[in-house]
């Protein structure tokens, strides 16, 4: 059991800054997920913690212990690699026992722990097989098994689900969450898939270009993204953005998007008032745009006219790709909506959930 602390950690590969001044505190028993687009430094952050890369700057602590110069094997961590990295010439049993043998664990104890871990993961019947003789999902379990037999203080996962098919991924996601509860150990998990992050994490750290953008619970990241990048990255389909100006008219504060004008709700007025007359980026999620008359009760609607470009029927909902002015955006609307491509559509923005960002700094205003 241990907390993990990154303190002003940087990593450079020649001219490339893979991780830039990362500071983050991971509490004991937390399930922290690093998420971000390809090349943003997630894997590097994890490998720094594992001791597989050397720090360029900063400190990393596991528990209270400074581990900058501690060898990977002495950090009391275990890692599941993206490729699983099973030893191809060893049986599943030996794969799992290898680390314990090297630590001179008594034979009976090794046997007990391997069987126990295999039991947790449901792979008891595979212990004699070689990795080649396993399916992708089974290999993934063995890789997890090899990590949990060692009872480490921290588990590291680098995109462990990316080689599984969609269905198995969903199932394994739930199993990993369960495993986390059962083991009560700190999990640090890397993925580029925001759905994985949202479903499993107790907290998510969003990274971009080596920089930590925001770290918070999934709900807060979704409700109150700290900047334009986080707003666009969390949520699927992504949030719609419009260049807009804040204007005042008849005592109302409005967001003027050129082809539409929507009213700012009272509770957000205070923070937006100082930006009156200034350009902002107005953000609204596809799920906060409804097609009339199928608007849920109790929301603060603002009407917007748009032209339907394309529709995608998803069964339980319809994705409408719409145009206002010449700006395209997405709405997730009620399946009863009959709008067809080329037609006008009446939409209602749920202004309670509007977002606005500073155009220059891209930092959230509300």
């Amino acid at each position, binding site marked *: 059991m241990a907390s993990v602390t990154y303190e002003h950690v940087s990593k450079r590969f020649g001219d490339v800054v893979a991780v830039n001044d990362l500071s983050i505190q991971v509490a004991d028993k937390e399930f922290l997920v690093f998420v971000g687009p390809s090349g943003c430094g997630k894997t590097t952050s994890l490998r720094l913690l*594992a001791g*597989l890369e050397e720090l360029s700057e900063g400190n990393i602590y596991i528990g209270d212990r400074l581990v900058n110069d501690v060898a*990977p*094997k002495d950090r009391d961590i275990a890692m599941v690699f*993206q490729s699983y*990295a099973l030893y*191809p010439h060893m049986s599943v049993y030996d794969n799992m026992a*290898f680390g314990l043998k090297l630590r001179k664990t008594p034979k009976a104890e090794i046997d007990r722990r391997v069987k126990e871990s295999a039991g947790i993961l449901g792979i008891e019947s595979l212990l004699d097989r070689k990795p080649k003789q396993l399916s992708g999902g089974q290999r993934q379990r063995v890789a997890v098994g090899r990590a949990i037999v060692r009872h480490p203080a921290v588990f590291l996962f680098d995109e462990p689900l990316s080689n599984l098919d969609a269905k198995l991924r969903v199932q394994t996601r739930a199993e990993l969450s369960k495993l986390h509860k059962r083991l009560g150990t700190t999990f640090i998990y890397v993925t580029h898939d925001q759905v994985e992050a949202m479903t499993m994490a107790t907290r998510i750290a969003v990274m971009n270009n080596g920089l930590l953008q925001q770290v918070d619970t999934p709900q807060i990241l979704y409700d109150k993204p700290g900047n334009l990048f986080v707003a666009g990255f969390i949520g699927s389909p992504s949030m719609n953005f419009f260049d807009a100006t804040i204007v005042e008219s008849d005592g109302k504060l409005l967001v003027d998007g050129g082809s539409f004008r929507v009213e700012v709700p009272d509770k957000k007025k205070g923070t937006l008032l100082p930006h009156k007359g200034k350009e902002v980026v107005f953000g609204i999620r596809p799920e906060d745009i409804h097609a009339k008359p199928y608007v849920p009760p109790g929301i603060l609607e603002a009407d917007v006219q748009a032209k339907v470009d394309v529709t995608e029927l998803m069964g339980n909902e319809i994705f409408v790709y719409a145009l206002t002015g010449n700006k395209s955006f997405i709405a997730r609307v009620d399946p009863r909506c009959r709008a067809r491509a080329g037609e006008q559509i009446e939409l209602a923005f749920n202004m309670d959930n509007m977002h606005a960002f500073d155009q220059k700094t891209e930092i959230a205003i509300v």
Partner: protein
Amino acid sequence: MSSEASRYAGLAPVAVAAVPRRRWNLWHRVNRVAVYGPLIFLTVLAVVPVIWMLFSSLKSLSEFYTNPWLWPRAWHWENYTRVWMGASFGLYFTNSMIMVTSSVSGMIIIGSLAGYALARYQFVGRDSVLYYFISGQIIPGQVVLIPLFIIVRFLGLLNTRQGLFLIYLAAAMPFVVFMMQGYFKSISREIEEAARMDGASELRIFWQIMFPLARPGIGSLAVFQSLWIWNEFLFALVFANKPHLRTLPIGIVSTIGQYFTDYPAYFAGLSVAMLPSIILYLITAKYMLRSTITGAVKG
């Protein structure tokens, strides 16, 4: 509806398949001739001399002159016993075996360690070392024969097994190190890192993880090197030309000297000398083919 469906279900595949298959057959036949024709020709080219050698080794000397091309009228198996006894073939055979096993083991051990270091560790001058080995492949052994001779004599290793062993090792190293380096590079780095996190020392990672994983490549390399040393003539002649050190190729040549005109015995010797190569090849053929193919695909 159901009868119609079943009719289509039954007919469609046949109708669709029938037309292209005939065309494909013809093309296929042309293709086969084009591919197998040259292959058969090359096989004959390779096999005929071997058969001729085997036949000749079983003839009497007079028949060898009067019936040089066909199979023997009388089979003279005693040519083999004569060669084995008379020309100390047993000794040459043993010498060759010693040279092959010691040199190839040495090459594999040293070459794999060096190749692994070049493939996986960052150190100053690593690329220069690798280029040095690669450029070593360009220089043929004959070119450096005289300086080599001087060095070996200076070291007092002339006409010793150790001398020849070191020469084989040095001569093979550029190729062996280069190939090993490639094999190790092709193994996923994550496997090695997993072992490191499992607590394995660098040496253990090498011997218990990396070396076994590189085994297919190492195996075929060992076979190629064994065949080369088994047949190697020049170095063996120059550096180990004492009767008790002679390897098979040298031994066979000295047989000609000894029994000047005894060609059947000479060919009997050659046939025996060839045997281990063929056995080795038969055992490992499938394996080597596979490793060259996968090597080619991975680049």
